[in-house]
């Protein structure tokens, strides 16, 4: 198979915590990880495809909420803590709202929700959990929620 090459220039983002998201192949890797973990869950638990998508949706919710909207700061000490009050989502793209990356990351939970609720035929306990997950994730990504801490939680 002929090798497809991509060209990249170094992005001018000084924050090394979020700079890796601007390279080619990130969106594809994200989607592929979700797809392969669905296959993994199906083969390990042997449940219906709908249950597997629900499990993926909920674990995606927990993991992305924890790392994008809860954990603050950066995993290395070189920037001397200037981002220690910002979550990863707030650091993305230097705080600029509604960039392509942000729009992509907002669409992914919605698409997962649609797939999960469709494959479970909109049955009750799963539908409620999926809906809660997608509402929390999408609201957390609104531009108006930039640097907002509700009731001072995680401030």
């Amino acid at each position, binding site marked *: 198979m002929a*090798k497809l090459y*991509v060209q990249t220039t170094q992005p001018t983002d000084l924050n090394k915590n979020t700079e*890796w998201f601007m390279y*080619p192949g990130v969106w594809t*890797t994200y989607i592929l990880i979700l797809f392969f973990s669905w296959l993994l869950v199906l083969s390990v638990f042997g449940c219906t495809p709908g249950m597997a998508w629900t499990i993926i949706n909920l674990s995606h919710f927990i993991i992305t909420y924890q790392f994008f909207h809860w954990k603050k700061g950066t*995993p290395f*000490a070189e920037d001397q803590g200037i981002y220690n009050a910002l979550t990863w989502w707030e650091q993305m793209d230097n705080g600029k709202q509604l960039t392509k990356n942000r729009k992509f990351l907002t669409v992914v939970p919605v698409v997962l929700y649609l797939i999960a609720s469709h494959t479970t035929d909109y049955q009750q306990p799963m539908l409620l959990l999926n809906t809660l997950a997608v509402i929390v994730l999408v609201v957390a990504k609104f531009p108006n929620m930039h640097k907002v801490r509700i009731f001072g939680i995680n401030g």
Partner: protein
Amino acid sequence: MVRLPYTTALTTLFSYGLLFVFGQLRDQFRKILDLFKSSSLKEKGYAPICLGLEDFYTRRLYLRIQDCFSRPISSAPDAWFDVVERQSNDGNKTLYRTGKSTRCLNLGSYNYLGFASADEYCTPRVINSLKKYSPSTCSVRVDGGTTKLHEELEDLIAKYVGQPAAVCFGMGYVTNSAIIPVLIGKGGLIISDSLNHSSIINGARGSGATVRVFQHNTPSHLEEVLREQISEGQPRTHRPWKKIIVIVEGIYSMEGELCKLPEIVAVCKKYKAYTYLDEAHSIGAIGKSGRGLCELLGVNPTDIDIMMGTFTKSFGSCGGYIAASKEIIEYLMYTCPAHLYATSMSPPAVEQVISAIKVVLGEDGSNRGAIKLLQIRENSNFFRSELQKMGFEVLGDNDSPVMPIMLYNPAKIPSFSRECLENNVAIVTVAFPATPLLLARARICISASHTRVDLIKALEVISRVGEDVGIKYFPVEPMKPQLQPQPQVENIPGFQH
């Protein structure tokens, strides 16, 4: 501009994701296991030294491949040197020296002109100055630390670089981080290349001026940023900027690329911004007589407002210098903290630089300087073209002695490094955060003291190891019939620089 196969980008991101997941899992288990262990300091009410998450990268990623970095050496960093062996009993968390050392080919030291080991002209003079002036002046420059040697060096370096005056400091990193805050302050604007060295970033942050970044080596983007910033003025007050300085480097040490100096100087002159050129890697290594990037690209040195350089790379010493107009140097001498409060350069180090410059200029009576400059240029071009023919992705321009070979995947960093060391070739690998996350690389620095035989051996080893590790991302050029190896360039009669 790097080109990488798409599948490599996907697998690199996936590998980093996997490493991250495993690191988080280990952290969770560590937290659980530590619940039962009590720490006496915590009970006394002391806060932890670092937040658990800010050294995550060091603990979970860097320490796993710690044996590839900070390798101790036990001889002078010449073309061949002794690397001390280390072993670990606890999965690379701690390393201890076994006491043995292996003789390896040195492809990592910044030894561009070969002055890193004993030199027949420089070393006797350095030893004489050591006996006469002692290892340290034990004083700051303004008190009692300026010797005749320091003045001679400043005159010599100013003449060498092509500026009216110069001042030298004891450490290269400090030169940048202490000078930039003196030159510009709050209300000024610093526009620096996106891949500038951390000493420049440090100096820019410490100055208090607003810092903006332009895309690496792209004069058109620099012009865009300049126009935007000049029209907007200072943040919030929108008053005009007090001063604008554009900071670029001669050779970027992680890319091996030369700066597009003529275009950038033209843009700066058009918008009346000052230029600051950091020639740490290019002074002494490029240009017909080693005078750096200005000579190579035909830029008049007086067009650049401030030229900075270090003595560590090409001259085999330690320290840095700033060369600029007489007024600027006088101003720096009475305001710069590195001049007023830091110990002056060690006199033997000063003598080493003076002798090295004399050798390069041919003032020692031989043509060794010209041969060294020719050798490094030929070695770099030969090595780079051979590596590219083998299918490696090598960055950097022709004539530049720094050549990074792209590795990308995090697992290839330790495997390439360790395999090369097994074959007695010592290579420096660089990963995040010195380079962007996806673009890990192995950086090779060619020296004038590498012979053609050394380079051919290095090429064989790198080709074999690269094949096994899988970093030949580009198609391989077919082998052409080889000529006999060229004889070494000896004293050719009539050769003058």
